[in-house]
Each structure stands twice: as C-alpha cells, then as structure tokens.
C-alpha cells in the first residue's frame, strides 16, 4: 500500500468548517493513518474551546481548493483518492463520528492509527473521511496534515 498526504485548511468561520476531505470511489478507499489538527486566528487574541470531529462523508460537498496528494515515497504513482480542502459547501457527514472531541485553540490534536484501526469511508462514489471543527465562539481556521494509505 502507498501513503499520501495533504495539508488541510478550513475556511475561516465559527463552524462547521471542514479542513480536509479524502474522497474514495467504488474502486478504492483511503485508510486514514495519521492526522494532526491545529488552529489559527488573526489576531490570535482569543482563547476558546474548539469542538472537532472526524467522520465518514457520503457526499463530497464543494471544496474551494483541490490540493495535490503528496506521495510519501516520491517513486510512487499518483494517488487515486481525491482530496478537498477549504470548503465553501460542507461535505455530508454520517450521523456518528470516529472522533468527536474538544481542544483548546492554542493546542493540537493528533493521532497515529495502528494497522487495522484506520478510519475509512465506504466503497461508494464520493464517500470518504473528513475532519471539521463543529463549533467555536470566535472565527478560526482549522489546519493540519492528514496521511492515508490506499
């Protein structure tokens, strides 16, 4: 299996705002192996709790930017899964999440998922896995890398 990454970045707002969405197909599913989420504001004068979630998506929404998935090994072929960041229309998330957690805006959340414990979407067109901030008081941008295998 090959490993790819993109750098997630949400639009600025008070949520919900998606930082990254990795979109599979009927032929391939992305297995999320590693992720990190942080927050930025300008000016950075607030100190608030941020609710964040990672979950399945059943529709891709509209991503304002389509980043190039970077192969961790430069000799590998291009990724098959597509990535979307900085959404102008949110993806459709499932009713439940892999992770629904809170974090202070001045902290980071991160995890490396063991083999067999990866987050992944259904083998259906436009299905995938995405990360979003659900609710904050002051407008914020959520950012961070995501690595996946396919």
């Amino acid at each position: 299996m090959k490993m790819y990454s993109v750098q997630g970045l949400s639009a600025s707002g008070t949520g919900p705002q998606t930082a990254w969405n990795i979109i599979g197909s009927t032929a391939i599913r992305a297995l999320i192996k590693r992720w990190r989420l942080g927050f930025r504001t300008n000016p950075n004068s607030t100190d608030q709790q941020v609710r964040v979630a990672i979950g399945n998506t059943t529709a891709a929404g509209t991503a304002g930017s389509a980043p190039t998935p970077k192969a961790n090994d430069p000799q590998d072929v291009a990724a098959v899964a597509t990535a979307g960041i900085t959404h102008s229309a949110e993806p459709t998330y499932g009713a439940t999440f892999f992770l629904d957690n809170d974090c202070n805006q001045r902290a980071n959340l991160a995890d490396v998922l063991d083999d067999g414990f990866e987050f992944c979407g259904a083998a259906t067109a436009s299905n995938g896995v995405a990360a979003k901030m659900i609710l904050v008081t002051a407008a914020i941008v959520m950012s961070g890398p995501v690595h996946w295998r396919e």
Partner: protein
Amino acid sequence: MSIAELLNKRAALVQRAKAHEMVPQSPWSPDNAIMKQSLAEGHTLLSERPIAFIDDDEIVLVGPDAELVAAKLNEAWDLPADVPDQSPQARHAKTVTKKVELRDEGGIPYVRMSTQRWNGCLLALSAMGVMCIVTDGGR
C-alpha cells in the same frame, strides 16, 4: 449526469460562489484578510476557479473550465523537459504525462480523466497558476 447537466450545475456553483464573495463577512470575500493575502499570492477568487466534478473514480470538467484546464495542461506538457536551472514551478509543470484531449458532447467541450491522472495534473495546474474547486457531480 450528462455534460449539459454538469454545465448547468457549474453555472449554479459559480453564482453561489459570487454570492459568497459579495458578503463582506464571508471568508470568500475579496475584503477578507485571509482572502486578501491569498489573492496577493496569485490565487483567484472562488468564482473564477475551474470546477472539477467527481464521477466515482473519474474527474470531469465542462465548458470554459475544460477549455482552460486542457489549454494549461497542454501548455505545461509542451514545456521543454531538459532546461537547466528550472524553477520548481517549471519542474512541477512537467508532472503532466500526456496531452489532454478536449472532447465534445452536444457542442459542450469537456475533459474526462481518471482521478489518479487528475492528481498527477494538479501540481502542474498549480504551477501554471490554476487553483481548482472539487465537488460531487457525476453520480
């Protein structure tokens, strides 16, 4: 969706993007601090970005987006590969592995390619100054 339906969907998305841009508090407004910085770096407004529709494991672009993307990718493909002291942008542009075929359905130009080939083209498009939107479309 047919190519004509995708063209209609594209028009609706462009209108929606323009509506976003007209709201001063919107992150897509040209008056937004982050968007201002993005524009200064050479990025384009949301409504000006080509829209790539996901059709399972293929990407489809229609109408003017297809013409723009095909022209830029073919321009990248035509760049010489062996120029010394190439900029990173020029090297990224050479990630295009073959020319893009602009097809036609009912008089509407379109481009269709696998998502894997599309991912290979994204770096070249970025190097050519084209930032794309990606959204559901085909199915």
